[in-house]
C-alpha cells in the first residue's frame, strides 16, 4: 500500500497534551491549552438521558435539560441570560439519549464566572412553573412542525422500525406530542432529583487558559457536586440482528419531494468492527461528494440533490443508514440503486486505489476537524464518553490504515443487509 500517511500524530490531542484530573465524586476533568485566540470552549456530559425516562414519558429528559437554564437557586432566568449574552458568550444544555451534554463558548477572561453559573444550572435548577408551561408549549409547536417535515418523519419511522420498543432509540429524544403533553413540573423535578449526578461524567476546557489553572477552576466549580445515593443505571439493551425486512411510509401531503432512510442497527463504537465500518461507510456515501451513492444516485441518474450514508457513534448498536431526497415518483428507483450499492460493497472487494483514497481521506481530515477549540473539546469528550482511551485520536490513523478490503467487505455484508433492513419513506401520498 503506497498511500501516504497524511498526518503528523504528534499534532493530535493525546495523553501528553491533555491535562487530566479525576475528582472523588466520579467526574473527570480535562484541559488542553491553545493560545491562538483569546477564547475558550468548555464541553461536558453527565450520564443521564432519554434512556432513563419511561417510554410513555418520551421527551422528559430533553425537556428537563431545556429547563435548566430557566432559573436556579442563585440566578433568575433573566440574570442567566444577561450574564451569558452581555459578554457575547454561548451556553447550551442538550439532553441526548445516553448523556446530557453542555457547552460554553466565551472569551477566556469571562470563563470563570460563567462556569460558576453553569455549575448552578446543572446542580440547582428551580423549574419555575411559568417556564415549565412556556417551554412545553414551544416544544409542542416544534413537534407539530416536525409532522410536516418529510426528512424528520422518515428518520422517525426508521428508528421506530429498526429498534424494538424497549430500546431507547425506538423513540425520539424530543418525544411525541402525546407523551410531552401530559408532562408536569413534578415529573421534571422528580427526574432531575433521581438522575442528575456527576459520577461517570466529564468536563473539558480547551483554549486560552493554562491547563493547571483550567483544572483548578473546574475543580473549584464542580468538586462539591454530590452524587445521588443508590442511583443505578441498567445497561443499554443490544438489538438482535439481522432484522426482519420492513418497509414503512409516512404520508405528508402537498410536499414537493420525498425523503428516504434505509438502513439497520450496526455495532457499538468500541466494537472491533467499528473502524472497518467507518471506512466502508466513507466508500458507500461520504467520500468526495457522497461516495458511491453520490455517484450513482446523484451524478449518474440525476435523481437527487443529496444521497449519502451515515454511521452514527453510539455505545449501543450504532445506526447505519443511507438517506436521499428524491421526486416522489423516483422513490422506488432510488431505493433500488441504494440497495444495489450496499449489496456490491458486501459482495465485491473494494479496489485498492479506492480503499487507499478513502483511508487517506478519513485520516487526513482529522486535523481539519481538530482545528478549533470546539473541535478539540468534542473529540476529547468523546474519547471519555465512549471509554476509548485518551490516545484514541493518536492511534486512529494507524488503525484506519490497518483496515483491508476483506474487512470492509465483511462488515458491509454483516451489517448492511439491503434485503433485511428498514426502508422508511416520507412524502406526498399520491405518488
Amino acid at each position: 500500500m503506497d498511500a501516504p500517511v497524511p498526518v503528523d500524530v504528534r499534532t493530535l490531542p493525546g495523553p501528553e497534551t491533555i491535562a487530566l484530573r479525576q475528582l472523588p465524586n466520579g467526574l473527570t476533568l480535562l484541559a488542553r491549552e491553545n493560545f491562538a485566540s483569546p477564547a475558550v470552549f468548555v464541553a461536558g456530559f453527565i450520564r443521564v438521558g432519554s434512556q432513563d425516562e419511561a417510554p410513555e414519558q418520551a421527551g422528559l429528559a430533553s425537556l428537563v435539560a431545556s429547563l435548566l437554564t430557566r432559573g436556579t437557586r442563585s440566578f433568575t432566568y433573566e440574570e442567566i441570560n444577561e450574564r451569558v449574552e452581555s459578554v457575547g458568550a454561548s451556553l447550551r444544555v442538550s439532553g441526548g439519549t445516553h448523556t446530557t451534554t453542555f457547552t460554553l463558548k466565551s472569551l477566556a477572561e469571562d470563563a470563570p464566572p460563567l462556569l460558576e453559573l453553569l455549575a448552578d444550572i446543572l446542580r440547582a435548577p428551580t423549574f419555575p412553573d411559568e417556564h415549565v408551561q412556556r417551554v412545553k408549549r414551544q416544544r409542542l409547536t416544534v413537534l407539530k412542525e416536525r409532522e410536516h417535515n418529510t426528512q424528520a418523519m422518515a428518520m422517525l419511522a426508521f428508528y421506530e422500525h429498526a429498534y424494538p420498543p424497549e430500546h431507547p432509540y425506538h423513540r425520539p429524544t424530543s418525544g411525541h406530542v402525546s407523551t410531552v403533553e401530559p408532562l408536569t413540573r413534578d415529573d421534571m423535578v422528580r427526574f432531575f432529583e433521581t438522575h442528575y449526578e456527576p459520577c461517570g461524567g466529564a468536563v473539558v476546557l480547551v483554549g486560552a487558559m493554562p491547563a493547571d489553572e483550567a483544572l483548578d477552576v473546574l475543580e473549584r466549580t464542580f468538586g462539591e457536586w454530590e452524587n445521588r445515593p443508590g442511583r443505578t443505571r441498567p445497561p443499554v439493551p443490544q438489538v438482535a440482528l439481522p432484522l426482519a425486512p420492513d418497509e414503512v411510509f409516512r404520508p405528508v401531503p402537498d410536499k414537493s419531494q420525498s425523503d428516504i432512510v434505509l438502513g439497520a442497527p450496526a455495532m457499538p463504537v468500541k466494537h472491533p468492527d467499528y473502524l472497518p465500518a467507518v471506512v466502508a461507510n466513507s466508500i458507500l456515501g461520504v467520500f468526495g461528494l457522497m461516495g458511491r451513492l453520490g455517484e450513482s444516485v446523484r451524478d449518474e441518474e440525476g435523481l437527487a440533490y443529496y444521497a449519502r450514508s451515515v454511521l452514527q457513534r453510539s455505545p449501543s448498536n450504532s445506526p447505519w443508514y443511507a438517506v436521499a431526497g428524491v421526486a416522489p415518483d423516483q422513490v422506488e428507483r432510488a431505493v433500488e440503486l441504494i440497495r444495489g450499492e450496499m449489496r456490491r460493497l458486501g459482495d465485491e472487494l473494494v479496489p485498492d486505489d479506492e480503499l487507499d483514497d478513502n483511508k487517506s481521506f478519513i485520516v487526513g481530515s482529522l486535523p481539519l476537524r481538530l482545528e478549533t477549540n470546539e473541535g478539540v473539546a468534542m473529540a476529547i469528550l468523546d474519547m471519555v464518553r465512549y471509554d476509548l482511551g485518551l490516545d484514541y485520536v493518536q492511534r486512529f490513523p494507524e488503525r484506519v490504515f490497518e483496515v483491508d478490503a476483506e474487512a470492509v467487505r465483511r462488515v458491509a455484508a454483516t451489517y448492511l443487509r439491503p434485503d433485511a433492513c428498514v426502508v422508511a419513506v416520507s412524502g406526498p401520498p399520491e405518488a
Partner: protein
Amino acid sequence: MEDRIRDVRLDNGLRVLVKEMHTAPVASFWLWYRVGSRNEVQGITGISHWVEHMMFKGTERFPKGAIDREIARLGGTFNAMTWLDFTAYYATLPAQHISLALEIEADRMVNSRFDPDEVEAERTVILSERHMYENYPTFLLSEQVTAVALLVHPYRHETIGWESDLRTMTRDDLYRHYRTYYTPSNATAVAVGDFDGEAMIDRIVQAFGHLPPGPPVPPVRVQEPPQRGERRVTVTGPGSTRYLEVAYRAPAATEDDWFAFAVLDTVLGGAKAFSTRGPSPNARTSRLYRALVDGGLAANVGTFLMPTLDPYLYTITVTLLPNSDPEEVEGVVFDEIRRLQREPISAAELEKAQKQVRAQFAFSAESVSSQAYWLGFSSTIADVDWFLDFLGRVERVTEADVQRVAERYLAPSQRTVGWYEPQVNAGK
C-alpha cells in the same frame, strides 16, 4: 501568529490575499468570483448557482469526479457556495497539500467543459435541490416576501432560481455566463494557513499568472425604486404552524448606516456572526425574544442582516404558537420597532452589543477557513479594509445613530409583511 495580510494584484487583474496562520497544520484556499444572483435577469434566474454545480463536472485535466477524489484522498474538504453577490470555491487541506487547490481552481477557471449530457443530468439534481427547499414553509414564505419587497433589483429572486427558468435554461446560457464572469479580473484568491506567505504568493502567481484577464464584466445598473407604502403577501400551504416574516430595506455594507444597523439588529434580534457559516449565539436577551417568546406568543423569532454590495433586506421571522393571535404578534413586532424609533437604546445595551461583536470576531479567528472566508467575502462585497475596520466602525456607533437608522429604514411605509397560513388540506 503573523497578522499581516499580503495584498497583491496580478497583471491579469486577479486580486490575491494571503495570511499566515500557524496554529494548526492546515491551510485553506478560496477563489471568489464577483457573480451571484445579483448578476441574473429574468429567464435565467439560478444560473450562477447552476454554473457552480457545473464546475465540479470536469475539465480535460481533472475529469468529472477527479476534483472530489484528489482533494479527499489528501484529507481535504471542499465545496462551493453561491449567494447574492458571489460564487466562492474553497478547499481546506493539510498545509503541505494546499497547492492542489490552486491548480484545480486555475484550471477550472478557464477549462470547464459544460458537457451537454452533464448539464441535463444536473438539471434534475438542481430541481431536486429546489424541491427540497420547497418542503419548508419558511422557504416558500421568504421567497415570496423577497419578491414583493423588491420590485426590480435582481436580489428579488432566490439564488436557486425560479422553477420555470431551471427547466428551460440551456447549455449555451450556462457556458456564456461562465465565460463572462469567470475571469482573473473578476476574482479574488485567498490563502490562509500554515505556510510561508511569500512562497504562497509565488505559487499563486505560477498557477494563475498566465491566464488572460478577460473583458470587464457587464455592470449591474438596476436600482430599486423607492417603496411608497406597506406591502403584504400571504402564502398558503401544508402544515400546522403560522409564520410571519417582515422585511425592510437595509443599507449596503459599505454605508456607515450598515454598522449602526448591525448594532440595532444585535439589540433587537440578538448577536450575530454576520456570516453565511456557523450558528448564531444565544439571543434570549434580545428585545424581540423577550417580547415574543418570553411573552408567550411565539415558539421562536429570528432576524437576518447580511452585508451586501447593493441595498438588500432586513428580515424578522416569527414562528407562532398555535393559539397566538396573528394581529397581536404583528403588533408586538411593530411596537418594538417604534420603541427603537422613539427612544435611544441605553448605553448598557450599546456596550453589550459592541462586546458581543468583539467576541464573535475572536471566535472566528480560530479557524483558517473562517479567516479566509472573511477576507474573501469582504473584498468581494466591499474591501479588505471593510473587514479590518469592522470592530472600529462598530465601536464608533452611537445611541443616536441607532435611533436615526431605525427612523430611516424601519418606517411602516417601508415594510413588507408576509404570512404563511397553514392549510391542512391545501391542494396543489
